[in-house]
Structure formats: C-alpha cells, structure tokens
C-alpha cells in the first residue's frame, strides 16, 4: 500500500521505487504488454518468450479527452464527481497506455510530456484506493 491507498486492483502496479506498471515483454519480438499476458499476441512473432517487465517514466500525450460525466459502474469515484482528463500516452518505453491525468482540465495538450504516477482514485469505507495516472512535466 502506498501513501495514495490500496491498489484499486491488486497486482497491476507498484509505487515502491517510483510508479511502475507490472507487465510482460516478449523477448523474441520485443512487444510490451500491460497487463501481463501468457502468450505473445503478435501474429508475426516466431516464438512466444515472455519475461516480466515493468513500465513507467516519461511519455508524451498522443491524445486525450475529458470525462465530463461520471462513467457507469464498474468505475468508482468520489462524490461529488469531478470531471477529469483521460490521456492516451506513448511511454518512451514503448507502451501506449490510457490513464487519468492528475492535472486540471486545461493542462492537457497533444504532444505534451508527462510522467507516470500512482494517485488516489476513490475512497470507500474510509479507505483510499489508488491507480496509475499521468502528470504533466
């Protein structure tokens, strides 16, 4: 558990030595995967050889949108609902990934540099739950 709470889904990420997403990489074709897979999905790959890999650090915003209304379940959020930016980020480590932005609605722009962070997503029964998000650099 990090200072931002328990992971909203266990086993997907860690905040122990900086924010990292826990995935796999195929050592034959170098394809990165998050979350973990048990077989390489690349149809041109000659042999699936998966090793644990983690992803994080810097990236750039490929595009983004705003959740102006609360998404339906199974999403969970604090009330009252506060709109947030959803960014699609190309990490320097080769993964294109979606995540909320911790910054305000007017902070996102295509091409802007960001970094992966772990942050609180919602509270339930007095307990904070965390997820991965992005922060403008």
């Amino acid at each position, binding site marked *: 558990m990090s200072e931002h709470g328990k992971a*909203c*889904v*266990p*086993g*997907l990420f860690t905040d122990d030595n900086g924010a990292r*997403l826990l*995935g796999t990489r195929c050592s034959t074709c170098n*394809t*990165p*995967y*998050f*979350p973990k897979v048990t077989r390489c*999905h*690349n*149809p*041109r790959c000659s042999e699936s050889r998966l090793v644990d890999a983690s992803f994080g650090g810097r990236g750039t915003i*490929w*595009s*983004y*949108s*705003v*959740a*102006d*209304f609360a*998404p*339906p*379940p*199974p*999403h*969970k*959020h604090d009330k009252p609902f506060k709109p*947030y930016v*959803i960014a*699609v980020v*190309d*990490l320097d480590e*080769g*993964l*294109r*990934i*979606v*995540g*909320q932005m911790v910054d305000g*609605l007017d902070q996102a722009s*295509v*091409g802007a540099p960001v970094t992966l962070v772990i942050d609180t*997503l919602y509270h339930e029964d007095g307990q904070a739950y965390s*997820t*991965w998000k992005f922060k403008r650099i």
Partner: protein
Amino acid sequence: MQDVAVVGVGLHRFGKTGDDVVGNKSVTELCRIAVERALKDAGVSWRDIQAVSAASSRFSGGKGWGLNGNDVVEEMGSTGIPVYNLSAGCAAGGNAFNVGYSLVAGGVYDMVLVVGGEVMPKGMIQTSGVEEATDPEFLRQRCVGMPGPSFWATLARRRMHDYGTTEEQMARVTVKARKCSVGNPYARFQKEVSLEDVLKSPYVSNPLRLFEICPVSNGAAAAVICSAKRARQLTRQPVLVASSAVATIGFDDALPRSLAVPVPNGPSRHTEVYAAVTRAFEAAGVGPRDLSFVELQDNTCYYELAFPEEWGLCQPGEAERLHAAGETLPTGRMPVNPSGGFVSFGEATTAMGVFQICELTWQLRGESGARQVPGAKLGLAQTNGLGGNATAAILKR
C-alpha cells in the same frame, strides 16, 4: 457460389422507451413488426423462410442468452427452421447479414431472414458486465474510467491536432446528419438542428457534445434475402448483394481500445473496419470512388469525417472541406448516411447492421423520398463493434 439478392426489408421506427413510437414494446414485438414488413415487402410468407440469421442482444429478450432469433421464430410460428444467433457487439446486425448472405451464396438455403432488434437500457452503455481482474474491459473502467464517448472523443481530439479540425466543423456534421433525417419516417429524430443548438449542447466527453453522439434507441430491422434466381421470380429488378465481408482487429491497430498497446510505427486506425471494407471492395470488384453513397457507423460525427478518408473515398484531411461544400449530402459527390445515420436514429445496437441494409435497399430502388441519392447504383454499409468486430456489405442494382 450463387448470386444473392435482398428482396424485402422492414424497419420499426426507432424511439425511446416510454415515447409515442416504441412505448413499452418488447424487443420481440419490435422485431415482429419489422419482420412482417420485410415479408410483405418481399411478397413472401413466413413459411417461405428456410433459416433465420439473427443478431444476439446483450440487453433485451433472447431469454438472457442472446437467443433473439429463437424469440422471433416462436413469435412468427415455430416452423422448426434453423436459427443462427450472432454476437459481435454493435456489429452483430452486420454479422447476421454476412452469415445469412454466406448461407444463401453457398447454396445451403435459398431464402433466409436476417433480423436484429433492441430495447436498450438508459444512459451510457456499460461496456463490461463482469467484475474480474482478468477482463480488460473491467480493468479499463475500474482503473481509468473511460466510457465509449471518451474513446471517440480521444480520436476526435487527435484529428483536431492532425488536421486542425474545429469544434464548429464537427458540429456541422451533426447539422448535416439531422438535415438528412427530415422526412425519414423511421428516424427517431426527424427535425433539423442548428449549428448553435449543437454548440450549445453540453460536452459528454470534451471535445464531443451531446448532439454529436448518438443516443441509445429501441428499434428493429429485418431483411429477406434469397438467391438471385428466386429473386427474379419475385421482382423484376432485385437489389443484389455485390459483396459482404467480416473482419476482426489487427495486432498493429494502436487505437486506445483497451488499457495498453505497443506504440505503433505506422498509422493508428480502425484495422478491423479497414479490413472489412477493403475485403468488400475486392470481393465486389469495385473501388471506393465507384460508390454512389455509404451508410457508415456514425456513433459520433467524428466517424463521418474519418472513415471516408480511411477507406479512400477522399484524401486524408479533406473531409471537412467536402462537408462544408455539401458533397456529403444525398445530392453531393460523396453522400454519407443519407438516412440521417446513427446520430438521427440513435443506436439500437444489434439492429444497426440490418437497418443499413434496409436503407441501402430503399436507396437502390429509388424509394427514399426526400433523402434519395439521385441515380444510386452502388451502396456500402459498414458497422463495427466491441471486441474488434467489423462488417461491410456492398449492394447494387
């Protein structure tokens, strides 16, 4: 392989639960009305139908198992015919048409009913029904909270970056779509909206606004298809199926549909849609510029701009100019969604692929009234759905 024709089509007008159009009708009742109309249009009886290819609904009827085709057969009369219930998210209606087409083309049956219908729950479609850490849709919704409109909004935002598309240009696509719907007796919305109306509607997911995203609707669609030989006994000028194709997503797709994909080397586009449409062109022996019109899946105005470019109907970045010049209207050079599209009908998810077949058939017969594409000879219908499913069909006269 034998040539296949569409000999009868029928729609139940689209509406919203509780309104004057669909009221509290069940999905089976909506389907029955569409089927009765399609049979009448074809000039055949229920007993002439040799098999049913139906879209499976996740939301209504089907005994909770997507057995919507079985519901239709029970309702029409249990003749004991084979029923195929097809599931492909929002592409299910298109899939049902493809399977029906393939069965007739392959000579398995001579006359098949294709049907799809929905009674939709209110609000945004919840993409995943299961709460399991192994389900990527669950993870995306729980960990990020990215509903369907945000996926579309992300693509729209990227287009604004790539081509300088403005919010006003996107709003004008809705204005055009609603203009087409005027006088279409089956559309849920049949009134024009002004540019101001669209731009005043609230953001659902910035940069997309309420009037730019199709709502969910109740509705049903049916088509009777048969061998061209049989069709010529029924009508002098049947509408023929030039091709019907289905495809699924490619590994190099790179659109943000799940949590993560590899950063691509090439373009980011709807690979399943591109593959289905390309296969349909190849099988029909025609190219994108041969089309008289298209009915494409406009869950949002973005797709009316992006899809024609992705398929080669026009140059990348050219769509806004064509819209502004009126070229996407039924009377233009590249008519898109003369029916008014999903934005005017609302999405009765699994009915949509069959609804498009109805519109193509009416257009090719010259029966579309105010929204008629003059001299329509060749039309393309396209759907795509959750799971990376896509369909394309080309009809001709």
